[in-house]
């Protein structure tokens, strides 16, 4: 334009064109617009790409913390006024600590500064010392002191919260659930060891005294119906077969099982379900021969025992039911070994983890279910701590030295309960007879052991996808071959949109039909369904055979390319025939019902099963495979096929010998895309299966897939919890898996396209 205007100077003065200045402005404006458009589009394009990248990064960032280890950071250190601690405790908000000293003094203190708070001196009878100490389930705050005169005192400490002026105030309270005066357990004989526990049957104490006697005492609160007064009813039972020496007694919260550590390598197990007929069951060697059990503690829920030995070993034990319905104490798993004898085991309050302190001052943070050791380090250089106390929400830790020095630590240990190993291997869960793959992630109670094995879900996903692919692959590929190569173009123009509509059907509709229509239908006409799946190809061949005998004029009219039109009514007729004959077949061969016959022969049959999912999800996957495979076959260069036909090959020979080998990478890519789709499908499996996370490949049982599991559980989980993150992990696995599959398929297709264009 510029060229024209400058090369015509004669007309320039009278030109209708705007003046040079105006044009320059216009040019600037246009170039400005051009730049704006360029940067605007680039911005939008890059932000879309960034948004997609965010998905990937965000999923990773949510999953990452699961695999991080615990951290312990030292905070304040201070001196409290106390001698050697018997028992120490830290309250939920880490504001108030408690130290129970050997002289029977309960000293509460400010856990930030060490400033002394309330102090309770227990009224012990004159001339007695505390000879034994016991602690109940940590959350109950129940403690028992055994005295040298054979008496015991039971106390309970709690923390009351109030919010005066919107500020939290923690007030410690000490109560005496069994009365303020000590109870006579074995008068005159010093109590050497003691256990206390609260159960539904009352409060129970188990004592071992200096005379070698073992006794069991239950205190049941009974409320007078008329007056409302409560009285304590006490019952004593002597226990048989007391070991010679006792270092530790543990009673579980059902008050049924009693465990006694002897001070050597043995732990004895007593069945005290009925205390009057208490029974010694067995002794196990809980640590290596020649070593001693130096610490034993229950994990939360009082099912698992953690045993620490003088060699620093740590192992988990619990009762396992054998085939005769008898319980035995079984070794479940070991944890990373400490360098010195275990001094104290401190269980966490709300999950199956524990801290272990050894005599060399190392602190280990371990977790039961996942068998993880998250940290094992010396707590502080040159310090030897006697005891530790952990806050009930696992955020802070106090370590007590013998001289009254206290070191406070900040604790971060958010997700110890899963490990890569525990998610993909068999795990022995509490109360189970053997190791197993189980997915059962949540329950209302703190004592519940979350079972997060991804194996049942991954297998369920695979099961659903495999059955769907078994159904879809042959149908889709054969359809694609026929549509691309044999079908008349006129029909093809109708068939392709129909298949596209099939692809567009919402999966929620397919799932709903599968669950509410297909599942009952399959259950009722099971024999017909099998007959259709197996005999339909034969019927098609038969139709083809009979077609030969039709008059030539007909055959030429509807000849090649129109087979579909003839087959559709035949298929409908055949299906109708199978369904209507099904009751008679059942009657003849299967006593009236094939489904019942399966049950009688020991095959589990769920109404919503893998067969139904296979058909429904196969239906959803067929169009995906079809359209890609059809594309690949259709784009095989014509000169190849024409050459083959010209050399005298039949159409079918051309198909098998020329078209199929050329298009096979494309068909393979189609199958991969279909598989990726089947793996991630949610609604169909959610609606057409029972969603039970079983581990098997039975065609007549359901499954739970990764995607359905996310849909069911994610709305209910607490944000940031381990369960939440594990579900994100499931999503990430799905994402990465399908992404890789689709990328491979896409690369294959692009190569194929290249090859076609080179041919």
């Amino acid at each position, binding site marked *: 334009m510029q060229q024209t205007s400058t090369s015509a100077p004669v007309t320039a003065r009278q030109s209708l064109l705007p003046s040079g200045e105006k044009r320059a402005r216009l040019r600037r404006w246009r170039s400005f617009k051009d730049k704006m458009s360029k940067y605007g589009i680039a911005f939008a394009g890059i932000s879309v790409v960034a948004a997609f990248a965010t998905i990937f990064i965000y999923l990773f960032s949510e999953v990452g913390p699961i695999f991080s280890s615990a951290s312990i950071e030292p905070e304040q250190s201070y001196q409290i006024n106390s001698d050697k601690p018997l028992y120490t405790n830290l309250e939920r908000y880490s504001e108030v600590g408690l130290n129970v000293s050997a002289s029977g003094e309960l000293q509460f203190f400010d856990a930030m500064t060490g400033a002394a708070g309330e102090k309770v001196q227990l009224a012990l009878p004159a001339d007695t010392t505390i000879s034994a100490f016991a602690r109940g389930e940590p959350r109950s705050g129940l403690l028992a002191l055994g005295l040298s005169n054979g008496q015991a005192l039971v106390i309970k400490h709690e923390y009351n919260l109030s919010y005066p002026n919107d500020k939290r105030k923690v007030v410690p309270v000490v109560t005496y659930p069994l009365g303020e005066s000590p109870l006579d357990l074995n008068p005159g004989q010093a109590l050497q060891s003691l256990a206390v526990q609260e159960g539904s049957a009352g409060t129970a104490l188990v004592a071992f005294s200096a005379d070698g006697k073992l006794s069991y005492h239950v205190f049941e609160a009974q409320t007078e119906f008329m007056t409302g007064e409560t009285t304590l009813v006490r019952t004593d039972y002597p226990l048989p077969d007391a070991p010679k020496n006792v270092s530790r007694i543990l009673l579980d919260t059902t008050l049924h099982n009693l465990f006694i550590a002897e001070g050597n390598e043995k732990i004895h197990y007593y069945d005290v379900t009925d205390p009057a007929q208490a029974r010694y069951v067995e002794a196990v060697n809980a640590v290596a021969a020649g070593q001693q059990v130096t610490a034993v503690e229950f994990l939360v829920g009082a099912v698992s025992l953690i045993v620490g030995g003088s060699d620093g070993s740590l192992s988990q034990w619990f009762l396992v039911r054998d085939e005769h319905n008898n319980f035995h104490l079984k070794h479940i798993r070991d944890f990373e070994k400490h360098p010195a004898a275990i001094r104290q085991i401190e269980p966490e309050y709300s999950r199956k983890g524990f801290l272990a302190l050894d005599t060399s001052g190392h602190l280990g943070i371990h977790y039961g279910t996942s068998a993880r050791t998250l940290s094992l380090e010396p707590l502080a250089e040159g310090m030897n701590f006697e005891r530790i106390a952990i806050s009930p929400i696992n955020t802070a830790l106090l370590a007590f030295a013998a001289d009254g020095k206290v070191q406070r630590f900040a604790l971060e240990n958010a997700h110890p309960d899963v490990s890569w190993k525990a998610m993909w291997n068999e795990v022995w869960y509490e109360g189970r007879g053997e190791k197993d793959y189980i997915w059962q992630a949540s329950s209302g109670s703190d004592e519940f052991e979350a079972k997060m094995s991804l194996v049942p879900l991954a297998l369920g996903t695979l099961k659903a996808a495999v059955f769907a692919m078994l159904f879809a692959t042959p149908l889709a590929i054969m359809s694609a071959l026929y549509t691309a190569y044999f079908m008349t173009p006129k029909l093809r123009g109708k068939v392709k949109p129909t298949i596209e509509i099939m692809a567009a059907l919402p999966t929620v509709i397919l799932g709903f039909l599968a669950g509410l229509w297909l599942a009952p239908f399959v259950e009722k006409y099971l024999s017909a369904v099998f007959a259709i799946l197996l005999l339909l190809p034969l019927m098609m061949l038969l139709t083809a055979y009979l077609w030969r005998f039709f008059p030539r004029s007909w055959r030429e009219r509807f000849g090649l390319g129109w087979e579909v039109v003839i087959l559709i009514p035949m298929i409908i007729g055949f299906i109708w025939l199978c369904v209507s004959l099904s009751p008679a077949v059942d009657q003849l061969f299967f006593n009236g019902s094939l489904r019942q016959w399966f049950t009688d022969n020991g095959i589990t049959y769920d109404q919503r099963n893998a067969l139904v999912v296979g058909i429904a999800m196969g239906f959803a996957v067929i169009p995906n495979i079809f359209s890609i495979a059809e594309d690949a076959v259709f784009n095989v260069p014509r000169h190849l096929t024409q050459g083959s036909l010209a050399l005298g090959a039949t159409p079918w020979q051309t198909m098998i010998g020329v078209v199929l080998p050329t298009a096979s990478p494309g068909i393979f890519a189609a199958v991969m895309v279909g598989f990726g789709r089947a793996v991630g499908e949610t609604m169909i499996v959610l609606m057409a299966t029972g969603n039970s996370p079983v581990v098997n490949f039975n065609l007549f049982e359901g499954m739970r897939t990764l995607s359905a599991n996310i849909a069911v559980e994610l709305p209910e989980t607490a944000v940031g919890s381990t369960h939440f993150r594990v579900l994100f992990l499931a999503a990430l696995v799905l994402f990465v898996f399908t992404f890789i599959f689709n990328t491979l398929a896409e*690369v294959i297709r692009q190569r194929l396209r290249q090859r076609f264009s080179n041919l």
Partner: protein
Amino acid sequence: MRAWFKTGTPWIWLNAGAIALCLVMVIGVLGLIAVQGGSHFWPADLQRVEAVQADGSKKTLLAEHVRTEQVSAITLKDSGVALPDNAESYARHLLKLGNRDVYGRDFAWFLDHDLSGWEKPANAIVIERREWGNFYGFPQQLLQQDKVIAEGEALWPALQEAMARANALHDDITDIEKGDIGKINKALEALRLGKRTMELQGASAAEISQYAQQAAEEQAALDAQYAQLQQKLEELYTEAKRDSLKVVTAEGKELTISLSNIVHAHMPNQMSLLDKSVHYVVSIWNFLSDDPREANTEGGIFPAIFGTITMVILMSIIVTPFGVLAAIYLREYAKQGTMLKIIRISVYNLAGVPSIVYGVFGLGFFVYIMGGNIDALFYPEKLPAPTFGTPGLFWASLTLALLTLPVVIVSTEEGLSRIPSTIRMGSLALGATKSETLWKVVVPLATPAMMTGLILSIARAAGEVAPLMLVGVVKLAPTLPVDGTFPFVHLDQKIMHLGFHVYDVGFQSPNVEASRPLLYATALVLVLLIVVLNMAAIHLRNKLREKYRSESD
């Protein structure tokens, strides 16, 4: 025979069979939904029949015949049915008995030989109620405050009139309850939030107390309004309860149904074909335009349709510019190379990533992170009650936009790549800048491709349920996301969705048999919506292809 196999013809037939089977399945599925969903609205005749009960006594039933099936003897025996003879299988009928308040259940199976004396009494009536489902019986008298005002011949016309009046009253009541009282509640809430805002902004005690005083006055005014409305409501309620209908069930039990409880009544056995057709159309209209009742198992699906459409429109508004611009960037501006190839493949593959993954991302990133921050910044006065920090319309649309972005990008890119380079060159040769060529030549030509992409993405979004379960769809939303109060479109509200409605009613509802026809009808609406959208996309695309084929020739 062998030679025949050698020609390969049977294998070709087998392949043909595969595609034939696929076609049968597609047509079968569509047909099943259409027949089951469409037939629900046809007024079925009521049958009076004598049923032999377990103890041998006879009972008269008035019921709708739902379906008949053959059951094998063994299945019946297993379920504890006493069989009279040793036949191999028996016919049994599913009857819809209605009258849930009388019988406790509204569907029951009866063996064929237990039923006798089928007839269609002319004066049988179907009453659709707001509670307890349908009533089947015979009308006796129309009562006005316990006084009989019509019976016999005069009953039906009088009933029609009374029903029209009762329904009008019901509409008034709903208007007041949902509209006016809702407004008052909103105003009260705004007063409370106003105070909280002042506190958060650190206003002085004097200012706050001044505001509190003002608020107290306004509140008193609102309370007075509320009391007035309450009184009006009570009057309307008494008015609505004025009339009632005395009916008798088939076995002779008398009942009185308040007209305020009746949605609709008809006498199917007296209706002519024309009447039935009219009734059919009216029922469909009611289904599409009414709110659901009885835990979504009865009534209409209007909020679900509305929610789906609102969400999809919002999604289109987000996805169109970004999708189109991203495609233009990838095709026209970005430096072509390996990196771009990788990005392009990745973007294409995102279309194949399971939708639930997008849901998880939406919930974690959009709802919890973005929503949480929006709440902290803009709605601190409402905390800890979340505004955007909870699943809602906006997040659902945004998640679906992300989900369908690849669809739009792929389609637009395809459209751009189909435009012959000669056109582009021509424009550039005439001196147009790149952006002028783009916006005035290339993009207009590619519009149909963009439209195709958009329609396909709408179809996908309308049918997607899994991610929505996580980011904003609920089984029952009390109000629509669009209404007359500022800001008119409530992006933070939860919505109902057709697909989720199907899932919820079909799999979470206690009375599946009763809701089954409605489920099919809902499914039909959803399928029709999606099939129509897809047909449009396919049509558009074919037209486009033909156009360029002829132009490039």
